[in-house]
């Protein structure tokens, strides 16, 4: 303390807050600094969101979300719509989910319910963390090398399937971690109780532990899907892009449009109309992702309140 008193008497003024003290000045400066930092940290979200809302939201109308985009050119008044890109994003994300969710939930079940802490499960946990750190562009490069350039899937070159596979590589670690952590939250007493009445491991998992952990697992999976829907890097040379509707039986085996690749391609075009369309697509994509995020937050809070 800076003020030392020789007497044991404590007067009112001794306990009063003195803003001039070195320690109080120091405290206030640091608090102020972190307040500024926090402001700077939330600023990008506010700025990005407001630009997307203003520049993209103002263009939204029915024809925009139902029509096809026009190929680039400077004579265009409008660059058309983003209908096929919205549909394409849904298709590619669905393919990725169909691959990654069963695989990830299965892997998570293995880690949480069957693994015994041996080298294999430790390696898989480690591998899951490492896989989640692999840059997304490398997932794209690999799928290009393995699937697109070899035309291994029914001779398809760039295709929605290839894009979905690339996205599923990114989703997989998240789904595994979510399932693993969700199942670990389930009390061991429940597992013992089920086994104690003669349930097999499969019945214990499918009827007791998985239903109990449903909410956290579902929340995590919804977030993983939202994340995948916004990914671009794995798609630019797997799913590529298309100016047409996906149609017919070959729809999944041909190049397919997606919102994120549309934004990337059209943002780099020199034409104003294309740039505008990129903003409109951003608005739709951001809204989809933010709504999914807020929904999963609400789901988590809603159920946690109900449980307690």
């Amino acid at each position, binding site marked *: *303390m800076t003020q030392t008193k020789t007497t044991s008497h404590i007067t009112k003024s001794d306990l009063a807050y003195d803003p001039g003290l070195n*320690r109080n000045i120091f*405290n206030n400066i*640091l608090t102020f600094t*972190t*307040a500024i*930092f*926090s402001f700077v*940290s*939330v600023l*990008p*979200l*506010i*700025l*990005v969101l407001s*630009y997307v809302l203003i520049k993209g939201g103002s263009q939204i109308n029915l024809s925009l979300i139902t029509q096809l985009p026009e190929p680039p050119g400077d004579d265009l008044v409008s660059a058309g719509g983003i209908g096929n890109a919205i549909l394409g994003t849904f298709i590619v994300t669905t393919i990725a989910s169909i691959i990654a969710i069963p*695989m990830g*939930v*299965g*892997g998570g079940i*293995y880690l949480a319910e*069957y*693994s015994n802490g041996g080298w294999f*499960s430790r390696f*898989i946990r*480690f*591998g899951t*963390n*490492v*896989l989640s*750190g*692999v*840059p*997304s*562009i*490398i*997932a*794209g*490069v*690999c799928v*290009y*090398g393995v699937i697109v350039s070899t035309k291994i899937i029914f001779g398809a070159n760039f295709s929605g399937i290839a894009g979905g596979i690339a996205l599923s*590589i990114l989703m*997989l670690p998240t789904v595994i971690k979510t399932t693993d952590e969700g199942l670990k939250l389930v009390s061991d007493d429940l597992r013992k109780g089920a086994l104690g009445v003669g349930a*097999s*491991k*499969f019945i214990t998992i499918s009827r007791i532990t998985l239903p109990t952990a449903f909410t956290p697992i579902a929340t995590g999976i919804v977030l993983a899907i*939202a994340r995948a829907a*916004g990914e*671009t*890097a794995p798609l630019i040379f797997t799913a590529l892009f298309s100016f047409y509707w996906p149609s017919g039986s070959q729809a999944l085996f041909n190049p397919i449009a997606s919102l*994120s690749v549309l*934004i*990337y391609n059209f*943002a780099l075009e020199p034409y104003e109309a294309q*740039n505008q369309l990129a903003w409109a697509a*951003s608005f739709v994509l*951001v809204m989809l*992702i933010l709504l999914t*995020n807020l929904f999963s937050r609400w789901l988590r809070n809603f159920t946690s309140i109900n449980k307690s």
Partner: protein
Amino acid sequence: MTSGAEISYKQRRRPLTERLLDTGFKNLSVAMASMVAIILFGILIVVFWGSIESMGRYGLKFLITSDWNPVTDNYGAFTAIYGTIISSISSLIIAVPLGVGTAIFITENIIPEKISNLIGMMVELLAAIPSVVLGLWAIFVMEPFLRPFLTFLYKTLNWIPFLSTEPVGPAMAPAIIILVVMILPIITAISRDSLNQVPIQLREAAYGIGATRWSTILHVIVPAAISGIAGGVLLALGRAMGETMAVTMIIGNSNNFNWSILAPGNTIAAMLANQFGEADGSQVSSLMYAAFILMILTLGVNIFAQWMVRKLSLKY
């Protein structure tokens, strides 16, 4: 006494189907888990396989030459490697104080809980914004806005090699700023979790001997949470190195080496995104070689991050 029970319990002896289901399900889950390992090794093998030709031709010279010329078919990745390292380190230098400061601000009872939760949620939502949207914003909003400041920097400090070119558009500097935006949520979220996990007793002990808020934070709480924070910073570094879309859109994609961060540059990830689709012949192999280097860099950082979190986390 079992006879009565046996009548009503037909499956007291488990039928074969149930048994098969039980073992089948277990084997299925093992197979699913193994996919992680298969995919991971698959990625490594594919990238390595693709880069063998270029590795044989250039060897380690690839790392230190900056000539990248598809016309003469001569490749060296120094420009991209330099760009990857300088952009990720610089963005980290800016993002760490911002992220950790924000995390402290929202965990240490400085402001009402509602506001700190709101700030926390906004930072988390920032992480949900797709990279390509941030890139779009960077091209059309951020870069034009920043250019006068960067021009001012150039005019006053152009004797420094890092600021020695006139800013004219997409360049390394705006790419660094957009990387800051992208890794800020990771650093903030992980720091926040680590700070929240510091036992309340430590806090009370410090306050109990008359420490002020900030001496408690700086001398007790942050040191106790340092393992998590450091792990988060390393994860952010890995993410910054591999981040592709926003960087590709704003960095300028120049194959020519330049020290200045005000000039267009390149990163490995940006180079892949930009050239891989149209490359053929030995350029593909050289790009794969670059991808292999990026893979090694991010793997190294991520493994080190995991090791560090485990090593330091037993402290308290």
